[in-house]
C-alpha cells in the first residue's frame, strides 16, 4: 500500500491492506492480530499499527512517500485458501474485480513483456 501520509483513514487502511479493524484486533478471514493500541476515531497511525502487526513500512521521507508491505505472520503468502480480492485495470483503463468471476473456475496467469 503506497502512502503519502502516515495518518490515514481506517477505510483507506482496510481497503489498502485487506485487514479489517475489529474489536478483537486487525483481522483477515479467521486470523486476527490483537492491537493493544487500536485506532481511534476512524484514523490509523500507520507507524503504530505497522509495529503492532509486524507489517514492514519502507519510507522515502525525502519524497514523502511510504510503502506498507504485507504481513508475514503465517510465514506464507496465503493465510487462507480464500482468494483475496484483486482490482486491476485492463489495457483501456477499465477496472476489473476478480470476485466478479464467482461461479466459474478461474485460471489466473501472470506474464510480462520481458
Amino acid at each position, binding site marked *: 500500500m503506497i502512502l503519502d501520509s502516515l495518518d490515514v483513514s481506517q477505510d483507506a487502511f482496510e481497503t489498502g491492506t485487506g485487514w479489517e479493524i475489529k474489536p478483537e484486533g486487525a483481522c483477515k478471514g479467521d486470523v486476527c492480530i490483537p492491537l493493544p493500541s487500536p485506532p481511534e476515531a476512524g484514523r490509523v497511525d500507520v507507524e503504530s499499527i505497522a509495529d503492532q502487526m509486524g507489517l514492514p513500512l519502507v519510507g522515502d521521507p525525502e519524497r514523502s*512517500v511510504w*510503502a506498507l508491505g504485507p504481513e508475514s505472520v503465517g510465514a506464507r503468502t496465503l493465510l487462507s485458501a480464500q482468494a483475496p480480492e484483486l482490482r486491476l485495470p485492463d489495457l483501456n483503463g477499465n477496472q476489473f474485480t476478480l470476485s466478479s*468471476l464467482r461461479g466459474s473456475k*478461474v485460471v489466473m496467469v501472470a506474464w510480462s513483456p520481458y
Partner: protein
Amino acid sequence: MWQAFREDVADQGVEIVTVALETTGAEACRQFIEAANPAHPSLIDQYHKSAELFGFVNIPNAVWIDEDGMIVRPSEPAPAPPSMKADRPNIFADLVPPQRLLDIMGEAVKIRSNPAAYEAALRDWFTNGSQSQFAMTPDEVVNRSQPRSADEARGQANFELAAHFEANGDHDAAIPYYREAHRLTPENFSYRRQAWSLEPNELDGPVARFWQGPAVGAEDAWPYEGDWLSDVKAMGAENYYPEFKAEQA
C-alpha cells in the same frame, strides 16, 4: 495461446485471466495483448499487486480458483498450453541476435518445463473439479503457497515503492528500491527480470527488454548485483522453474 485455450474450454465453465506484471504500465504490454486479442480479462498490474497477494515469483506463474472463490492450486509455473497455436508476435524475427541473446537462448533451452503435463492437469480439473487429483485441500494450498518471511515482506514493500517511482516516471529513484527488493527476496525472479529489463542496451524496442544485463562496454554502469545470464548460469537453468507436482510430497 491462452486465448485459443479459452475458446477450447469455454463450455466447461472456465475463465482465463491474464495479468501483465509491468511497472511502466499498459503501453509496454499493448503490442502483445493486441496481437493475442483476448476475449478474457487481460489486466495490467503496474505494482505487481497480484504477485504479492497470490505469490507469483516468476513468469509465467498461475493460480487456480474454484467456483466459490477458493484457491485450489497456489502459484506455480504455468507453461502455455502446447496444443494451442501461438499468438505472440515474434519480436525476434529479422534480428541477427547478438552473442548475449544467443547465450540466453542457450540457457533457456535447458530450462525444465512440462507444458503437456500442465495442460492435462488443467483439463482434468475442469472435468473433475474438487475430485481432480490436481485440486488441493485448503490446508495444502496454504502450506504450498510461497514462503514469506519478515525479510521477504519488507522486500515486497521495497518493490512496491520502486514501482511507485517507476509509475511516476522517476526511474532513477526506483533503482535503490529494486535493489533492496532483490536483496530481501532471493527466491523472486520476476522482481529481478522487471528491473533488469528496464536498463538500456544496444537493442531497441520490445526485444531490448530481453537483454537483462549490462550493455557491452558499459559493465560498470550496471546498477544491479546480478543479471539474467549470470544468475541462471549460477543457479543452473534446470532449476529455473520448480518441477510440476500433482500433490504434496
